[in-house]
């Protein structure tokens, strides 16, 4: 288990928005809910390798920009075809206005 690292400022992500975060050759998506909770998942859709951060967050759902597959940003659960495999989630929290993530 790696340590917590600073990914970005919270203000860099819109409410009900997502941001791509690349680290150590891997890509992640960080989400901010309407109530400023933050979540972090692997960055690519499990259906086809598309960056989820380019998709639309609404409530707790991210919709993939390519085929409209959807995932729960709290749990990574796939919610709609063509996405069937769940997303891998990582820990995320806000500390002094920074989004901190702990990557698995």
């Amino acid at each position, binding site marked *: 288990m790696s340590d917590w690292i600073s990914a970005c400022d919270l203000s860099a992500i819109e409410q009900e928005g997502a941001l791509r975060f690349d680290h150590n050759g891997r890509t992640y998506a960080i989400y901010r809910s309407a109530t400023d909770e933050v979540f972090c998942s692997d960055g690519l859709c499990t259906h086809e390798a*598309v960056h989820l951060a380019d998709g*639309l967050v*609404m*409530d707790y759902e991210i*919709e993939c*920009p*390519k*085929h*409209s597959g959807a995932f729960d940003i709290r749990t990574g659960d*796939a919610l*709609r*075809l*063509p996405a*069937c*495999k*769940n997303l891998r989630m990582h820990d995320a929290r806000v500390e002094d206005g920074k989004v901190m993530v702990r990557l698995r």
Partner: protein
Amino acid sequence: MDDLQYGKRDKRGYWTPNEPAGVAPIWSFPPQVMKIIKWLPQYFFPYDVLWVLSALAWWNWILPDVEVMKTLAWGWILKLFVVNLVAVFVFFGVYEWRLYIKRAQGTRFKYNAKFPSEHPSEAFWFKSQNADSILRIIFHAMPIWTAIEVGILYAYANGYVPWISFADHPWYLLGLALVMPIIHETHFYLIHRLIHTPFLYKHVHSVHHNSVNPSPYSSLSMHPVELLLYLGMALWHLVIPSNPILALYQLHRAGFGAIPGHIGFDKIEMGDKSGLPTHAYIHYLHHRYFEVNYGDGLVPFDKWFGTFHDGSKEGDALMNARYAKRKAQMNGTQG
């Protein structure tokens, strides 16, 4: 027109009609006579009448004499290709221009509030749904369409298959013409299930499904194998004793007739108070949800085999139950 009187738009911008999608009432039991009478004009108007007229127009004004069609020569084949190509772009283009370029009715009655041109996607050649679709129509759809057409005409002209004449067997041919939409629906449903099998989906049908928000040119934006299977429904007229005009009608029904399911709008406004129903919703739901509505509802295959989605919350629940099973399998094997 106020589309919110006819449906609801959710936070994501998806518009859902108040009236759930339904299958043709001819299959209901006990028979619902009034419903059938009310529905019956849809069986012919406006589209099928148009395809019959286009088949007659091709036969009378575009195609050469039967003697010429006995030989495969570039002259008449190229002319046919060019006419087919122009006709498709004019026909699809009318919808594209009015609804997607001029945007005459904005997003009113549009199932997906986004316009594909404003959302470039890596899924398409040049990141453009339209550029991708137009190129596929020019280089894949129209050569295959024309090749199938030429093959059928060549077979009839040379007497390789029986040519039933309207003069000798008018009632038989009229009956055949009346069941042709059912032939279309059955053929379409069967090949559609086939190309949704994992291998064919991945390598063939996914091209068409890149258009999750379909627009007119998406109609024939397909992999060549899918085009062969789909437009090949006209080849049934080499198996069933028929007439080349009916074969042309079947081909035009498949080719030009691909558009209703891909218009992306539920109604085309005709003034302030009325709108022409497009009957696009069943197939739109297929593009949005992938594994529902393999047919268009003329024959209730999807109801019989449990894949029908009428756009309602109940339809969502049924789909989600199937999805949960599949997802459990996928994530269970994921380790």
